[in-house]
């Protein structure tokens, strides 16, 4: 059914992590997350693109999952205890059915298929709604009852109210950067969450991350991190956002596979962050100073 992909362009990922994701803490975000999780307080991550929000939530779901298993050793069915992570990338055509679920035809029968949110609610996992401002406003209202003490998800079509399993937690991400005035979180939505602010990690940590993720040597990694820092200094001067950690990692990967560093930075970082010619030239000069 090709027509389907026309608008069902969202990706649903539902997986539980088997391996510990690599994550380097930058501040007290781990403690905050843990505390919030203990109290089942929903979270909102604020931060620029590519600064590690997604990675962090993956890491936390793994970490908390492991702890859960450890604590429930006695019951001896540790396999059944887990903390799945459901990531939903939001976009403006996302309907409530897409989140909650719908009936499908199967032969003569109609079959109800849970949407990702429902699945997360049932499974007691972490549901990560990425770029939530992209979603329609009426969609965001859907999550309201999930975030207060009721922890309920109304499934209208089936006329039922689903109570979230114990492990369930809702996490939103939100990039406050250059937002369109049309798209802003409603206050009533925003005020239901604990927000954790993210920013690009400080130089040393970022270097460490780049080194690990891109597989470059220490020197190159710290040069890349330095480049990131310098470019971010240019924010508000024609640069909407600075170079993300993700971009630095891209550059690192190119370098690791043999592209000369200046060239690698040029194609993966410089051209990605700005269209402004003179800003590009300035960044070219910065790249040329940092890399041989």
């Amino acid at each position, binding site marked *: 059914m090709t027509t389907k992909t026309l608008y*069902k362009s969202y990706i649903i990922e539902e997986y539980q992590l088997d391996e510990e994701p690599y994550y380097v803490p930058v501040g007290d975000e781990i403690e905050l997350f843990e505390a919030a999780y203990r109290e089942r307080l929903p979270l909102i991550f604020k931060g620029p693109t590519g600064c590690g929000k997604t990675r962090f939530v993956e890491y936390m779901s793994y970490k908390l999952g492991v702890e859960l298993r450890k604590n429930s050793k006695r019951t001896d069915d540790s396999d059944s205890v887990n903390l799945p992570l459901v990531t939903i990338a939001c976009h403006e055509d996302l309907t409530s059915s897409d989140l909650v679920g719908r009936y499908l035809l199967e032969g003569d029968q109609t079959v109800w298929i849970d949407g990702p949110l429902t699945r997360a609610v049932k499974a007691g996992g972490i549901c990560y709604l990425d770029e939530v401002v992209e979603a329609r406003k009426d969609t965001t209202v859907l999550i309201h009852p999930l975030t207060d003490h009721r922890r309920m998800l109304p499934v209208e079509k089936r006329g039922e109210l689903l109570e979230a399993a114990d492990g369930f937690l809702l996490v939103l991400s939100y990039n406050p950067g250059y937002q369109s*005035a049309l798209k802003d979180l409603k206050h009533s939505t925003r005020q239901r969450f604990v927000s954790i602010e993210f920013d690009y990690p400080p130089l040393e940590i970022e270097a460490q991350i780049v080194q690990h993720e891109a597989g470059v040597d220490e020197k190159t990694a710290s040069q890349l991190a330095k480049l990131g820092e310098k*470019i971010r200094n240019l924010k508000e*001067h024609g640069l909407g956002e600075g170079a993300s950690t993700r971009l630095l990692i891209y550059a690192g990967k190119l370098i690791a596979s043999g592209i000369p560093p200046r060239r690698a930075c040029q194609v993966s970082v410089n051209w990605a962050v700005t269209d402004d010619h003179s800003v590009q030239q*300035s960044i070219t000069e910065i790249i040329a100073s940092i890399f041989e």
Partner: protein
Amino acid sequence: MSEDSINDKWPELKKFPESVEKNFISSLSAMPDALSESQIRDWYQQGISLASQTVRSWESAAHFFAVSPSVLKSMPYSYFEKWMECGEKLCNESPTLASAYFESSPGTMSQLRSRHIEEWASLGDQLYKGTWKSSTLACRFFVLSPILLSQLSFNQLQTFSQFLDKLAHRSYDLALECLNLGEQIFPLVGEDKDAFLSLATALVETGWREVKSFFDSGAKALPRIDPDERIRFLQLAENLVKNGGTNIPGTMLEISQSLAELDQEKHSVVLALSESLLEFEPLAMPDFINSSPMIFEKLTTSQFGKWYEEGVNVIQNNPDAGIAYFKVESAHSENTIEMLSSGIEFDRIKTVMEMYCRGLAGAEIKLSSTEALVEKNIGWVSKNSPTTEGSTVFVPTIVDRYPTKEENFAWFKVVSTHQVAHLEFGSFIFDFNKKSALFDDLRAILEKKQLDAIENSKKSNEILDESSSTTEFSETSQNLEKAWISDMQRFFNLFEDRQLSLDIFTVVESARLDAKVLVEYPGIKTFYLQVQNDSLDDRPDIKELPAREAIVEFMLRVSLQQYEGVSIPLKYKSEIQQIIQIMKRVTLHESLVEDSAEASIRIYAIIASIPNEDIPEEDWEDPSFDDEEDYEDPDEMEQMLMDMGMGMEMELRPEGEEDYETMQEVEYRGDFKPELSQLMNEMRMQQQDQSGGAQGDPLTQDQLKELLENSAELDMQTVQGEIQESSGVFADNLIKEAGTNLPQSPDDNQGKYVHVDEDGGELQPGEPETFVYDEWDFRAEDYKPRWCIVKQKLMQEGDPAYFSSTLNEYSTLVTRIRRQFEMMVPEMLRKERKLSDGEDIDIDDVIENMVDIKAGSSPDEKFYWRRNKVQRDVAVAFLLDTSASTAEAIDEGKGRQDEWDAPDDPVEYMVWLRTRRGQQMRRSYKRIIDVEKESMVLLINALEAIGDVYGIYGFSGYGRENVEYYTVKDLQENFSDKVKRRIDRIAPLHATRMGPAIRHTAHKLNQIDARTKILFLISDGRPQDRGYSREGVEKEYAVHDTKMALDEAKKIGINSFCLTVDKSGHDYLKTMTSDMGYEILDDINDLPERLLVLYRRLTM
């Protein structure tokens, strides 16, 4: 001879006034003896016949007799007869003329060949036309003949008189003036009088009114030109005259001025090219010459030739383009220069390099030219040395030291990187009390010892001499007690020889920075090292320096990586070894500016113990050091500190020692003034503190002056005038520069936080179309109720043509933007689902519907979809700052002044005026408001394409009861010719009281029914108004009120965005717009384009 015998012998004499007889008698005895009796008689008869001609001709006769003996001395009698004859003839015409002729004869004859007598007389005669004016001219000609002949050959004199004659046809006055000027000008013309005269004669024919100013300007212009080239200059001018050039004197002045700016050896090059240019387009020649000094700044002579040739190519195809080319008012010309030159101009790389520096330093650094810094007169005097004062990096206007562009650019980059390193690696955040990373800290100990020493000397002074005035030390100590002293200053106060300590610190700190740059920026390493290496070329011969200076020089060489080939004084080898070890430590990775300070103390201690004596030639050697050893503080450190603290070395100094003189700076490192920079930073901070909540007493002008006088960084000699005076000037300028408002005396700052408009109360809106709003007082944390009155008016109407001409001017941009905006439209076509009728069925919804039927739940019958033009539901109000400051010119440099005088002749004047006006219209400078207006035009054009609801308002005002609010286009209004007309009339008015204007706009938006409402504020600076922001004291008030107004808007669902062109906007905009967006435009010219981009982004 008795009276009787005279009466007998020369009876006619008695008929005339006495002077005739008297002159005759006295001359008679002076006549040469060789004259025969009959010759004497002839002479006598001649005189008498002169005297008898008319009633007043006896005067001529008197002159005739008086000068005869001396005239006769310079010629044989035969010519003397000719002379008399000529005199007689002249007298026939006019006795006055004859008198002048006789009178000037002795002088003239001594310079004139006798055979020219007749011709000379006839020259005067020709000028005389029987009128009174012509007589004055002719007489004057005779009178000046001796002087003129001392400059001119007789032939030239003839030409000159012909010229005068011609000119006299037009105006006797003018001819007379030129005659008088001749006296001054001919000596200046030198060898080229023929050319000058022929030019003058040519001018009479083409534009006789200019002749006099030609003489005037000739006198000014010629001395400026290489004497060998003056003739070419004059010929060029003449050529111009012949080719219909106008305002020749003005042009001559101008081009001579331009030539004067060039080295004399370039004159022949420029003139030769000018001559060949005449073949193509003579009228372009002056522009060519006038441009040449500017071009020679950038190009070599051969490159200059190439630039010229390209110009000739252009001019052959299109004379107008050629003229623009030679004026350097065409892009082609500029590009040609840029392409030919190897130099790098600051202006061309400013944007890129400024951004580069900002990136590196992570601060709002500005990049500026050193010229600008020198002009500020705050202590920096060199136009060539790059430097920074903590917030701006200053670099030379042009760099042309290497043969290629790449290298010159690289030099620029090295220089900028080094200067930025001061900021990036913290030279100016030196903290006296902060621990260094690599040394044991001695600063505090040394200071203590110093204070102790002062204390002791005070005590002993008191014992010795009760009345003795305070010593130098106690003054320093008073300084120390003052709260107002920068850390850097406190540090330098530790040293007796401030200059020496500053030099040491400079070298050490530069070495630290260079080391850091080389590690952090390996990409520029190669060229950085090359620049370091090249700096060695300009160093003085170390062997000529006395010991201390030699050691400092040696340190400097080491810091430039020169380890070999520098000699050192043999006997100080171990000291130098130590110094090198200390310096090496500073170049380690962890080092801080405090380490440089600690290192400087140690090095100073070592150098101060060495007398500053000349070292004999044989006592030098090229050292070799083993660099294995690491530095350790010596055991006698304690003692050394003690010595330094007491300032003892003074007394121990040996005889014949020289004063320490400062080292020669390294060009790429430039002019490092840590003390001054820190002072400025602190003054800026003080400024900010003051508006927040003052802490400590502010620095007064006098204190500042004193601080400046103590500093070693101000080279007071370089600046003219007394130290006292110049430090006062610096102080004033510094204060201006830091933007501080220092109180003259500490006690006039009372009432600092009293708001000016505190008195008075609520206001009532009286007239219609007035609105009253509250104002937020952040100190009281409350609103001032009904505080401001907004008067809403319709903007006046002007010329609608402005609208279309702006669109024309920006036609490329207009097309592009229009396209972009039109592209927004399909983006807005959203697929609308769940309709009961539409383009097609939605397969998903159909399934769902069927499923619902099967599942038995109530089915949803709406499963059609349609591409629907979703109503873009945006209402936006643009609020334009039309305060007085928007009248500021954008590019002040362009406002060129024309120097030449207006012509006298009314007709010519009108022509002149018209062309001038025309030029001004075209060239007229642009103001901020103009760009704002243009932006509005483009905006309207774009918005009309997408159909958003929009309004445009301007605001200004004076005082809280008078906030003017002008409607250009109301939100509900349709776009019309009226709107076009109103735009034309947008003009700068008064102050900027933003709060009420925002409130009023919000009020308007609130009445509109739209899903998205945006308030777009376009301003050129911070809010300020009478009683709204007392400059320098309470800017905060306005900023807070504005913020509050924006917050209020937000609460009723209006999003705001501020776009400003105030470069210093970051500080307050952050506060003002908190969560909302803002952007600062680096270049106001980007406003139109940027505004549209932002608008798109905001509403998508």
